[in-house]
Every structure is written in C-alpha cells, then in structure tokens.
C-alpha cells in the first residue's frame, strides 16, 4: 500500500516546468485543466490539485479494454500522448496503448517498483526497490540514465527547472540533472523518505520517516526549516495559499506556513495518515487509515465534511468537476459538497493507486495488476 500511493504522490513533473512562474515562486495551475490533457504525475498536475477538471462521469457501464501486467501494482499510472505508463511489483515499467490496451514496450528495472512514475519531456522517471532512480525513454522504453542510492526509492521523482528531486530509504534527498541523472546535491535527513517532494524554485518540501517536515533550499539542499510532528510521515505535501498541507502517522493533518515552518493548524483523525492531500478551491481532501475521507478548509483546517468510505484509506483522491474519485478496494465517486457516495464500481481493488480520467474514460489499475479502461 503505498502511498502507499503517496510515496508516489504528485510529482512536479518537469513537463510542468513551463508553468513555473518566477514572479510568485510557485507553480501555478490554470483553472480548469483540460480534461483531455496529459496526466503526468499521480494527481495529474504538479499542483496536487488532484486532477481538478477531470470529467464527472456516470457509473461506468463497460470496460473498453482490460489487460494484465503480470504482477501486482502498488502505485498509480500516468498518461501522455495516448499512452498509459504502469509500474509493477515485478520490476517492470509498462507502456500501454490507451486505445486498445496493447503493451507497446516493457522496461525491466529488476526490482519491485512502488514509485508512481512521472513524466519529464521525453523521459519516464521512477524509483525502484533496488535503490535506483531510473529515466526511460517514453517512445522506445530504453534506459536514459540511472542514479544509485543506498536505500529503496519509493517516492515519485519531481522535476522542476531541469532538476529532478527524490528521497530515498537511505535517509537522503537527492537533486540530479533531469536529462543526465548527474548529482547536483544530496542532503541527509533524519529518517527514510517515502514522501514525494513538492518543489518550488526556492524550496523543496518533503516529509520524513523521522516525523519531520523539511524545507530544503532548492539550489543547495541546505535545510531552511524543519517542523516536528508526532510520528513518521508517509504523506506528500501540497501547497496552497502559502500553506503546506500534509498528513502524519501521528493521526494529524497539518497546515504549515511554507515560509517559516510554523504550524498554523492541525486536525486530528482517528488513526495514522499515509494518504496525501489533494488541494483545490480552498479545500484539502485527504484519507485516513481510519477509513474516513476528510475535506478540510485550507486556511483554517476546519472540517467541511468527513465520510467513512472504507476500513482504511491510503491512496489520494482525484478531484473531478463535481465529483471526487478514490480507490479503496473498489472505485468510488463521491459528491464533493458532502462526501456522499454517488456510485461504486467493484473494479480496481487496490488501496495504493489512483485513477486517471481522460475525456470520458477512467483508467484504473488494481492491486493484482489488472488494468482497465472504463467507459
């Protein structure tokens, strides 16, 4: 279970570099992302807006196609130019034709992959249990580069300004050149790093297994601030209105001032949090291991609603137009106003993945390695 998926959570893919604005030091997202556009990281966009703009679909009636990747999957798929990229526990990265479900190529990393891939220019980036981050050519499936660390790489690589950032189980954050994998800097933190970083031009924000949220200088990796929580952090942060939103295994969701690291608010849930927040329109949606999905007002941390949708939630939610999608054993669609279930589909049994929505199709990967295109 990853974040189980969080590990994999939204990377700032470099394909989003163009959206970077030096004026405000943040990646900005156009309101209403094109629902037919690419889905280059776990929640579509670097902003961690959770796929905002994805279409609100009716209960899917049929599978246009279905295929199996041959082993379990504990990460989310990504999408670009009509191609679906799925990483498996057998150590394979699969490129699948979105029209017909046929595999176009398969890259063998040789060890389990928990990391949700991210896309940067012509490269597919991901980490592996063998301690390496890989870059693979999206067209041919051949390896472009690899970067070795001394621990598992479960986080998603995040690219910004030609630099790719990722954490490792060896307790270090790494910054490498996106086109070559050459090391720019590495910085030791106090524990394993499965959280996927949120990158801006100045700061790299990331959670750590030692219970701290860290802000590192993007250029040097030096620590800008560290804020303590009560337990390790699996969750990957989202940034909204200068507030960093992140969950902790200490049962709390935190709102942290991005400039100073000061805790502005924290909201208590019933168990630890491994999921990551999706943030849009002033609301953060995040799941807990207590099985509840929580909608919190970003400025205050005040609860808007909560809904118990499963025994446990570890995957992040996708925020569509008028709908929230979440994978918890099956696929659920919820009303974003009150969290009530609109429909359920008993496919996609996984708590470590997230769906992607392209036009009127939902692409879904199950924990057992089944891949569906639902209409």
């Amino acid at each position, binding site marked *: *279970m*990853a974040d*189980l998926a969080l590990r994999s959570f939204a990377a700032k893919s470099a394909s989003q570099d163009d959206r970077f604005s030096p004026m405000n030091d943040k990646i900005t997202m156009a309101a209403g992302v094109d629902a037919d556009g690419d889905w280059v990281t776990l929640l579509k966009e670097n902003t961690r807006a959770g796929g905002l703009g994805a279409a609100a679909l009716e209960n899917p009636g049929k599978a246009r196609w279905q295929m199996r990747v041959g*082993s*379990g999957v*504990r990460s989310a798929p990504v999408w670009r130019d009509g191609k679906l990229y799925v990483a498996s*526990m057998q150590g394979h990265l699969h490129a699948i034709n979105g029209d017909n479900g046929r595999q176009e190529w398969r890259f063998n990393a040789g060890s*389990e992959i928990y990391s949700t891939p991210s896309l940067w220019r012509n490269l597919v980036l991901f980490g592996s249990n063998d301690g390496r981050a890989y870059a693979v050519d999206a067209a041919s499936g051949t390896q472009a580069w690899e970067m070795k660390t001394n*621990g*598992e790489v*479960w986080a998603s690589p995040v690219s910004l300004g030609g630099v790719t950032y990722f954490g490792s*189980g*060896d*307790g270090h954050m790494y910054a490498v050149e996106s086109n070559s994998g050459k090391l720019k800097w590495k910085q030791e933190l106090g*524990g*394993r790093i*499965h959280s996927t970083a949120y990158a801006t031009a100045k700061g790299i924000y990331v959670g750590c*297994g030692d219970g701290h949220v860290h802000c590192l200088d993007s250029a040097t990796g030096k620590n800008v601030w560290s804020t303590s929580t*009560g*337990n*390790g*952090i*699996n969750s990957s942060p989202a940034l909204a209105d200068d507030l960093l939103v992140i969950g902790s*295994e*200490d*049962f709390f969701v935190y709102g942290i001032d991005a400039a100073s690291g000061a805790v502005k608010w924290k909201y208590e849930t*019933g*168990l*630890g949090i*491994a999921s990551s927040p999706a943030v849009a329109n002033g609301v953060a949606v995040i799941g807990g*291991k207590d*099985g509840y999905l929580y909608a919190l007002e970003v400025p205050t941390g005040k609860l808007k609603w909560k809904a118990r949708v499963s*025994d*446990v939630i*570890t995957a992040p939610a996708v925020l569509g137009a008028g709908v929230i999608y979440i994978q918890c054993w099956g696929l659920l669609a919820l009303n974003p106003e009150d969290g009530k279930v609109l429909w359920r589909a008993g496919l996609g049994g996984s708590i*470590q993945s997230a769906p992607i929505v392209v036009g009127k199709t939902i692409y879904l990967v199950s*924990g*057992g390695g089944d891949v569906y295109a639902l209409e």
Partner: protein
Amino acid sequence: MDRRTFVQRTCIASAGLLVGGIPTLGEDEVVLPQAPPIDVHEAPLATKSPLGMPGLYPGRVVELHHARSIVGNRVSQPVIRGMLEQGLKELSGESSATAAWQKFVEPHDVVGIKINPSGAPACCSSPELVREIIRGVQSAGVPNQNIVVYDRFGDEMDLGSYQLLMPPGVRVVGVQNNRLDQAGYDANVYAQVDFFGEWETRSYMASVVANELTKIINVPTLKDHSASGVTGCLKNVGYGTFNNVARSHKEPISFTNPLIGVLCSIEPLRSKVVLNIMDGTRMVWHGGPLTQNQDFIYQAGMMLLSTDPVAMDTVELEIIDKKRSEEHAPSVWEHKASSVTRNSREFYTDASKNLFYRQPGHIAAAGKLGLGISDLKVIDRRKVEMKA
C-alpha cells in the same frame, strides 16, 4: 532429515466424516475431526542452540502494565522503552538492558524481528516497540544492515508503514508480494499434510529464515483468533514463516491444532527464535486477526516477555478469555454449533459468533512437542505494575 509427527488427539471422528456433516455430542456440542499426521522435512542446525525454544528461561513470563503506554490509541515510545528495559532485566536477572540483550544476540548475528502486521492498521506490532527492539539489538553490537524486520506479507507491512518507520539501513522484508508468490521460500524445508484434499499439501519455510537469519526476536500481538483461539508467539512465528498455511482451516473446521506447534518445532526455526516480546498495548478480544472494529480492541497497556512461547501464549489465552468473559462473550474454548456463523459480517460485529470451532489447544500441543510449558500453575508469571 525427515520425520513424521503423529499428533495425539482425543477426538473420535476423522476428516472423512465431514462429508456427512459434523456429529454432535449432546445438545449443542460437536465432535470435531482428528487431524491427519504431518510429515516434516527439516534442516537442523549443526549445533543446536540452547537459546532456541523454549530458550534460556522456560516457563518464565514477565507481564508489564503501564497506563500511559497507550493514550488515545497512540503508543508512547518513551514509555515503551522503559517497559522493555524493565522487562528484560526482570526476565534475565541482569542489572542493565544492554547486558540482557547480550544474552540473546551477538555482534556477528543476523537478527530477524518477526512482526505481526496482520490486522494493520488497527492492531499490529507497534512500530514504536519495533524501533525500541532495534535500539536494543544495536546496543548489543549488531549493525543496522544485520537487522531484518520481516513478515510473510509485504502488503500488510505496507499498511503498517513499517518500511518508512524503521531506521535507514535496517532491512524490511515482505517474503511474498501477493498470495501466490512462492519465490521467497526454501523448497527443502517444509511440512506436508493433506487436511481437506487441497491441491498443494506442503508448507515451505521462508528462505530468509532458513538461510540468512541466525537469531529471531518474535513480536506478536495480544489477540484472539477465529480459528486458533489466540494468535500469540506460536502462531505469529509459525504461520508467519511458512507459506500455504491458511489451508489448515476451512469453515468451520480448524486444524491449527496441531499445525501451529509442528511448524514451530521445525529446524532451523526452532533454534533461531530466542526471545518473544508481545505487544499488549492493544488487545483484540474478538474479531481477530483482521478486525478493524474498535469496539473489540481494548487499550490494555501491556507488554509480555518470555523465551518460552508456550508459556507466554498460555498466559495470553488466560488474559483474552478473561476479557471475553467480562464482555459476556463465550470462551474461546466453546464448541457450540449455535455459535458458528458463515456470515463474516455477523462475526465482525457480534462477539458471540465465530467462523470456526476455535482450537486454543494448539498451545498445549506445542508444549508436548517440547516447545515450552503450558500449565498455568507451573508458569513463573511475574507481573510488573509500572507507575505512570
């Protein structure tokens, strides 16, 4: 080496009688079928370790209580540290926790920590306790790269976030990544038995246990079990080390007795388990092993230590059954047809219902195999009440 373990049972029926249903004894009591013999193919160590089950202190169980060890369902690592150190000193008679650890592990050892993630996230071996055990093993000179936190199922370990929460360098191993994954098992060490006509009749030992680890610290939870009565030291390390074990129970019949004890007796597992540390901060008194229903999870604030898994499980059984009695739930020994349901939803919400005829007798059966002492009157039970 091959051996055949014939298990002595008093039951008069046989598995074949299941075809015609389960016979009854009087009103509601049933007669359960006798388990078939189990063949064992093991790999004994060249020199048998005196630390293996039942270990250095047969029959001794240290039972610690601390009201602040769990508050608001959160486990306090500093309190756990104090409990663990006190418990080790009480168990070993040493004046320091480090000296106690040195009785069990040496710097050249490769130490496995067998957790119980089954039931995560609501009730599993607390990462806070596992981190303190790692600290203790380190204090005896074992480097991080020679410490392996393991269980059979990687997906259940993920639910507990163990990989993230362990120190860098410590290996975290899920032996299999899905229910059919067989690559992590040693084809030369197994138990063979046909319970219900299943297609695969062997259960193989995990390779990491058979070939890599030199010592094992067993970290079970305090939990009832729908098929075996309780899941404690024996079930955690037996069913958590061999594959294809769920086949031992098919509703409503359970052959966990005798399989649990037989698996624990197989070398080299038997010789490698040197210490049992039970996480009793939470107690699942019904719905085990997988329940997430907080109505059946009591924040007990306990920790138990023993080298003798049979003695500790005997104490656990007494604790669980006492709690069930307080909650007006039937004893785990009860074998009434009216208590058994095939409706899992009913089982998970009604403490009077169960999916199987539980087999808590597996503990005494393990005692007969020489794994420890199962007589409560003989067990040296040392209760330690720690001040908040």
